[in-house]
């Protein structure tokens, strides 16, 4: 197990280099610059800008700088936002996205697992099929349709929640974005839980538990959930990391100052240091989360040995 973990950690570094290099190449190849726009600037001004940001150096020199930056995990200052370093931006955008993502996923876990477990326990009943239908709705309705619908109903008609902007983690402004973001995860988690639980509930040791006279609640929570939630856990790894990309639409609709918003704007602005910084961060998150998930998988299911 330890060797497995060490191996996985060691691999993270070269993977990171590859990911960042590939992204850098893609950004370089894309047409346009961070200063190109509809209002054209004079050629001399453009030359000054290129010199100021080191864009006039040959590509291998610039690439070398990028590699060194990965090592220090400091990608310099944003090209678009004068004087703000990439790490500064990451530090202040991350809590917002993390809070949003965490809340959304927690909500999805609670609602999804409950729905899925009940559906599995009462298989083929009215409860089962309506839960699955609702879950299916979650997958079928795009979040940029759901979000405005929620805003229309709860913000502009009922005036219960603000239609946009971030007023902090524990404020009303997190409700609608979290619901919008969690919808699709509720759906997947409910379905995964249901199918996982169905399989587990058929197995021998559950029959034994029931035969021993344990209440249904004890059977479920103490025995079935452990195995039944395996697919949910394996789903959680990449899901959590990609929640960041997934929040792009939600942050755009609700104008939240999170990583997703920064990232999409950085892409459109060709803000190379910021793109690289966020990509590196996402890459590390994905790799670390995958590792954590694989570890937790082994913890939960003793049959699995690394």
């Amino acid at each position, binding site marked *: 197990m330890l060797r497995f973990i060490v191996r996985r950690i060691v691999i993270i570094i070269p993977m990171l280099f590859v990911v960042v290099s590939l992204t850098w190449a893609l950004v370089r190849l894309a047409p346009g610059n961070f200063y190109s726009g509809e209002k054209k600037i004079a050629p001399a001004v453009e030359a000054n800008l290129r010199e100021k940001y080191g864009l006039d150096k040959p590509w291998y020199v610039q690439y070398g700088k990028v590699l060194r930056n990965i090592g220090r995990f400091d990608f310099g200052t944003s090209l678009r936002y004068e004087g703000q370093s990439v790490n500064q931006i990451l530090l202040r955008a991350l809590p917002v996205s993390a809070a949003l993502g965490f809340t959304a996923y927690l909500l999805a876990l609670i609602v999804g697992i409950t729905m899925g477990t009940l559906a599995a326990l009462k298989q083929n009943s009215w409860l089962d099929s309506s839960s699955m239908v609702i879950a299916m709705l979650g997958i079928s309705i*795009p979040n940029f349709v759901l979000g405005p619908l929620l805003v229309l109903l709860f913000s502009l008609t009922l005036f219960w929640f603000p239609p946009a902007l971030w007023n902090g983690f524990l404020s009303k402004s997190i409700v609608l974005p979290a619901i919008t973001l969690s919808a699709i995860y509720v759906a997947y988690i409910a379905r995964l839980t249901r199918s996982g639980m169905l399989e587990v509930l058929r197995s021998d040791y559950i029959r034994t538990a029931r035969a021993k006279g344990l209440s249904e609640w004890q059977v479920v929570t103490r025995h079935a959930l452990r195995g039944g939630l395996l697919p949910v856990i394996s789903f959680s790894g990449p899901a959590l990391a990609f929640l960041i990309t997934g929040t792009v639409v939600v942050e755009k609709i609700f104008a939240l100052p999170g990583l997703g918003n920064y990232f999409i704007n950085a892409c459109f602005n060709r803000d190379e240091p910021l793109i690289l910084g966020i990509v590196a961060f996402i890459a590390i998150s*994905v*790799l670390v989360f995958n590792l954590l998930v694989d570890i937790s998988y082994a913890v939960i299911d003793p049959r699995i040995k690394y």
Partner: protein
Amino acid sequence: MPEFDDQTKPRVSDTELHVGPEYAVAERDVSEIVSGEVEVGTSLWRDAWRRLVRNRLAALGMMIVIVIALACLVGPTLIEKASGHPYDFIPRDASLTKAFPPFRTAGGQFSWQHPMGTDTAGRDILARVLSGGQISLMVALIATIVSLLIGVTYGATAGYIGGRLDDLMMRIVDVLYSLPYVIIVIVLLALLPAKTPFGQIIELFIALGAVSWLTMARIVRGQVMSLKNQDFVLAARATGVSTPRIIFRHLIPNALGPVIVYATLTIPTVMLSEAFLSFLGLGVRPPRVSWGSLAAEGAQSLAVYPWLMIFPGVTMALMLFCLNFVGDGLRDALDPQMKKQ
């Protein structure tokens, strides 16, 4: 957003876990394989089909999917013949170039002309939704086929050959998986030359298919890994069948079950991805429309003209809904464990 197959067990790197159902391989199949003919067990598929049809929900879903797909295929042409205008026709009369609610026309009177209303340029929404469906379905279908072709080949090869090559191939998959999807697509869509609107759609196929093959490869690899030590493969190897032939004619047909299920579930995911891209301005570009771009356009005016988003949104949701049920049904039909019920 990347696709998730909610039935796959996790990819566990160093251990081989059985993934997916096993297939009963009849003696007849083995002898046929050994003799060089290959025939996928027909009795298995016929069984599966029967189970699928008996599943009312999946059957209903299939019917709706077919109805909508047919409507999208022939609808625009029929409407054009009936009304005399193509779907993107903008009336010259300024009093008609505005958004009318369904079944209404200028002055608020009832009219059969626009059952779904018009958009702000006076274009009929029904015609646009059906035309959009053509593009959405075509994009989803072809992107899925692209991802199928690439993913199946890649995964099967990695799974069968195993060892170092498998490690390397899966590492590549991991790296690609952690690349930011949006930026790949931006660059792909910016770099690949598109001389015609048709070319733009091809780009989209490649861009979408290029990301969805990753999970497909993983699934197929898992399947192949659990199959490759089975007797019929060992027999084939013993009789000297070449590796590519083993992969393509023995392993892949037997791994097809989850592949089909996953493919059916990829279609809605790709459709959603395309819609998301349209929302960002990178997806299908005018004059072509897709459900995603229509819904994104409509979301802009949701507070004032709700039907602009509701109709394409509901149509797309309905399609995705039914496709997911069909996929579920397929999975149930092909999963022998459910047979025990």
